[in-house]
């Protein structure tokens, strides 16, 4: 079902406040402009099924069993191995009574933490960047 808003680009706006997305429009449920200039921008006046389309960065799906697959680009999968090993080495360092084992485990934990941070924080976005080709600027027609 379509809405009654003819020009959403200049009759509607959104803003993010904390954990919510606020949608405001300046038309009534028939698509006519609101008469009061002071109270022009209000919540949308109509229910529109699948009316809002969001493009957003989301969290990868969690894994629930050993047969699951990782919901990330394969270029980043090795970082997960590093993260798991880092945690396990830290556990070993914290639980071992042997000072030598503890020291080696801490070193290995640091190494895997470095690997993880380099893979994700420093190169993560660049490694899986799929942008290419010549560039163009598309100026919107606001008429």
């Amino acid at each position: 079902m379509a809405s009654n808003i003819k020009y959403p680009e200049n009759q509607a706006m959104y803003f993010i406040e904390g954990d919510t997305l606020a949608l405001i429009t300046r038309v009534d449920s028939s698509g006519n402009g609101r008469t009061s200039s002071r109270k022009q921008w209000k919540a949308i006046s109509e229910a529109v099924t699948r009316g809002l389309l969001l493009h957003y960065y989301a969290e990868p799906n969690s894994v629930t069993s050993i047969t699951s697959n990782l919901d990330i680009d394969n270029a980043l999968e090795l970082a997960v191995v590093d993260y798991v090993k880092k945690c396990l080495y830290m556990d070993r360092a914290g639980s071992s009574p042997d000072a030598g084992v503890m020291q080696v485990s801490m070193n290995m934990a640091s190494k895997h933490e470095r690997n993880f941070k380099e893979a994700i924080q420093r190169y993560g976005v660049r490694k899986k960047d799929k942008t290419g080709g010549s560039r163009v600027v598309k100026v919107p027609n606001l008429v």
Partner: protein
Amino acid sequence: MAVHSISVKELVSRVRLVFPGAPENYILNLINDALVEIGTYKVKVVHGMITTVADKMYYSLSDVSEDSAGNKLEVNQVLRVYLMDNEGDYIQIPRLIDKNLLLGDITSEDNLNAPD
């Protein structure tokens, strides 16, 4: 051409080469921790749809909020928002920078945090 990727099973095998006694559930929890950490960076773009409600201004983007099909949105950062026009097309709408609206419309709101 086949793409090489690591399944959870293979990941557990790699870990168990060094930690043979590591419990499977614990490794799965650690994998999920890693995915949450990785998710804070820009690794997954999703396109979700929400049904608007008459006179409702605020739409939840919390971890438990759902799209119009009942799937979890799992939003980390909103890139763009489109609103359906009178011909059924999605048109991009601008983001309001100055949020000091004169009118605070609280009709039909269920996503406002009231003091408790």
